[in-house]
């Protein structure tokens, strides 16, 4: 039995691992968002289901965090352009 994978298999495995890593990064982000947004939105004693406002807060929290990241990148870019003048 050969010890190594053939070239085609190696390429397939490399692509597979890259996809898995991308997915792992996404999972990690989701975990972080869950913790942060839980802290922001779920302030009281846990009950048998979320209130409508808690649900909305959690969904909004994710979108606003992503908006924040985009905004920060834009700000940085603008400052970079300004300081270049």
């Amino acid at each position, binding site marked *: 039995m*050969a010890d190594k*994978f*053939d070239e085609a*298999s190696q390429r*397939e*495995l490399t692509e*597979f*691992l890259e996809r*898995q890593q991308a*997915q*792992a*990064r*996404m*999972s*990690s*982000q*989701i*975990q972080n*968002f*869950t*913790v942060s*947004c*839980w*802290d922001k*939105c*779920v302030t009281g*004693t*846990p*009950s*048998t*289901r*979320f209130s409508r406002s808690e*649900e909305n807060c*959690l*969904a909004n*929290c*994710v*979108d606003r965090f*992503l908006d924040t*990241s*985009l905004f920060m*990148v*834009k700000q940085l*870019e603008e400052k970079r352009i300004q300081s270049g003048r």
Partner: protein
Amino acid sequence: MTARKEAMMNSVKQELALANAQELMNKASERCFTKCVTKPGESLSSSEQTCLSRCLDRYMDAFNIVSKTYVARVSRERLEGQQAGLQDVL
């Protein structure tokens, strides 16, 4: 060869899924301990246990809401193909 390759791929997927589940449970335990066990006693009271059980369910709900929102947003950004898009910050 194919069986070995598939076995390897399945093994990687399983490890990642397990790590993800463990992280979720660790964070849920931390958050719910903070919420429900404010003055640790000699054992977990039944009201503490009830609180913890509900809290775990809510944490899972929160995870699901966050996952759905995140995935939907990322898909939307990819479709719109913005220049300085989420691809740059993700």
